[in-house]
């Protein structure tokens, strides 16, 4: 049963009572959609006649979501470069590996770059993943300048004819301006070699409203082209991803649902909304 289903079926039979609306609002807020989004949905329910309710709520939900393309555009015969960014502990390295696996399964030649030279053993973590999925990993020395590692990776990707280059950057809290500057540098340096096609922001699905602020600040250093929301399981709804997409119009592209390399799928807004409403 989706998040809205039981309420909508109730509301479409009879006019919603104040208690029911309060309860509905509570459920919405508890899924981390935020006060703003929750209020707009409640307004829709209050405004619409019972028979139009479902389509009206669908429209409201759609209006929150970006209309941009959610696929990663890959031009054949040319290198596609993807930068993975986000705060600490959201699952960047795991997502980078999952993404690499996703492309490899589609027959692409993929190169990973371990540009997290800051966290102890982060490079080894990606190397282990690389071995498991059979993808080459470019690494630098620990505490090496991440921009230099990325430069090496990009150069090598071009030279050896890779089709996809995925760069895993170090986690950084968005409030550290020096680290955000470093990210800007990584981008500038890579772009000297090859254009960056995608910057994917990794958002922890258990994050609250702070997620919006994270994405906001990151987008000031590197223009974000998409999001990956992670750690989504049966109970975590990751409503903040919707709130963030609404606030910044950055499309959610992938959803990470577990620890396995296959626990990763493209985000499909149509079926997401259908799921919520049933």
């Amino acid at each position, binding site marked *: 049963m989706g998040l809205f289903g039981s309420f909508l079926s109730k509301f479409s039979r009879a006019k919603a009572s104040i208690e029911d609306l309060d309860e509905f609002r*509570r459920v919405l*807020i*508890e*899924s*981390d959609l*935020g*006060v703003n989004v929750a209020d707009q949905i409640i307004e829709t329910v209050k405004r619409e006649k019972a028979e139009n309710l479902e389509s009206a709520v669908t429209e409201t939900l759609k209006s929150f979501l970006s209309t941009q393309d959610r696929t990663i555009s890959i031009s054949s015969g040319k290198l596609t470069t993807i930068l993975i960014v986000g*705060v*600490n*502990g*959201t*699952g960047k390295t795991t997502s980078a590996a999952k993404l690499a696996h996703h492309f490899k399964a589609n027959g692409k030649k993929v190169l990973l770059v371990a540009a997290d030279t*800051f*966290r*102890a*053993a*982060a490079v*080894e*973590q990606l*190397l*282990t*993943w690389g071995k498991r999925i059979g993808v080459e990993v470019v690494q630098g020395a*620990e505490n090496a300048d991440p921009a230099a590692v990325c430069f090496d990776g990009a150069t090598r990707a071009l030279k050896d004819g890779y089709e996809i280059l995925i760069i895993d950057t170090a986690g950084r*809290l*968005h*409030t*550290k301006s*020096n680290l955000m500057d470093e990210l800007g540098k990584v981008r500038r340096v890579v772009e000297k070699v090859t254009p960056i096609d995608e910057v994917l922001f990794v958002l*922890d699905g*258990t*994050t*609250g*409203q*702070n*997620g919006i*602020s*994270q994405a906001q600040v990151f987008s000031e250093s590197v223009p974000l082209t998409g999001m990956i929301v992670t*750690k989504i*399981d*049966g*109970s*975590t709804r990751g*409503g*903040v991803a919707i709130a963030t997409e609404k606030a910044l119009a950055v499309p959610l592209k992938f959803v990470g649902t577990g*620890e396995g390399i296959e626990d990763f799928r493209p985000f499909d807004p149509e079926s997401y909304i259908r799921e919520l409403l049933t």
Partner: protein
Amino acid sequence: MFEGLSNKFSDVFGALRKKGRITESDIDATCEELRVALLEADVALSVVEKFVERIRQRSLEILPVIRQSTQQSQEIYGVINQELIAILGGAARRIRYAKQPPTIIMLAGLQGSGKTTLAGKLARFLKEDGNTPLLVAADLQRPNAVTQLSVLAESINVPIFAPEPGNGVGDPVRVSRDAVEYAREKLYNVVIVDTAGRLGVDAELMKQASDIRDAVKPDETLFVVDAMIGQDAVRTAQAFSEGVGFDGVVLTKLDGDAKGGAALSIAELTGKPILFTSIGEKLSDFDYFYPDRMASRILGMGDIQTLAEQAKKALDGDSAKRLEEKFVSGEDFTLEDFLEQMQAMKKMGSMTKILGMLPGANNAAMKKQIDAIDDKELVRTQAIVQSMTPEERRNPKVLNGSRRSRIARGSGRTVTEVNSLVDRFSAAQKVMKQMRSGGGMPKGMALPPGMGMPAAPRIAAAPKKKSRSGNPAKRAADEGR
């Protein structure tokens, strides 16, 4: 830390403060704003409702009493402050050490909450306190978690027990049990067990955690929570509380702008105290959690106590004493001392972090100023001083044009910058001379960054060298004959 939350509180109070006389409807309006502010700060909905209701009740109760008060908004503020402290845990609690060492501390939490980093920080913290901690790598799940902990252990010079390579290989329960045995044998007095992160719903991993718990019988099980967690905090805390059980909470990543609502939610919902906070990337960015400080911080009152403690820690005893002696003996404060102070300041963290702890740091104007501060200024200043010869540092008067241009080249700065540093330094030296002669700090004299005297103000005027009396009898008495 908690900035967002305190911003909102500041806004709520700003509106209230403008009212001379507070009515019941003002309280209702304030409570409504407070409700939205707390929800946006990711405080769990049920906690928000209870908290706001308590505030409303108590405010309404005191309303008749404070009718005569000229600062009614202050009284309401007091109510909120008290309630915040009450929720955040009343008094801070310390680690409970076992009567029979070793004391066993087990860390549990969601994936990515920062357990492994925290294990390192906690070990360092306890070691500084005179303990002999042993780190145990029992996260055999996440790729290279064992390596990560080993690297951390090495950097803080703490032994690690890591018999298994991890990456899915090995039995964490056995590792933990063996570790305790090992600690007993080698007389380590604290054992810190880093376990694998798990999702709240993962029954299998939850079972593993409770198996570890049963095997080692920890004295403290600490639940590690990311300060940025949202409404999920409720479910997560409950899952861990039922699945593993915990005695205390550690909040991590508090240096972000997370509004930190999780702290309120978890403390209220589980009734367990928050023991520690982790506030930065350096292994030293770790401290006890102080509910009263946090409450005053949330309300925009600043965190002077933490600042003072950090200053004390950063200026190590010896150098502070040396500075004091210099000051008393009338020796000049040199650029060498200045350099030492700058290095101490750097140990305290970035300038922005330090200033963020000051009262009023959350109001918009002050925030803008703080944001405009360039933390690299300290680095540049240090580079200039380090490009000087020892003689130049001791006696800046020798700095002629050619020396200055050499220093500029050496430090990669311009001659103008070198000049301005030297000028500011001589001005500061003058100020210190005046202070020593009891003149106090002249008004409007600003010290260049890093030139304050953190440890010195206790000293009054230096004892003057006693002049010998012209009267032979009196001189004899003076000299104690």
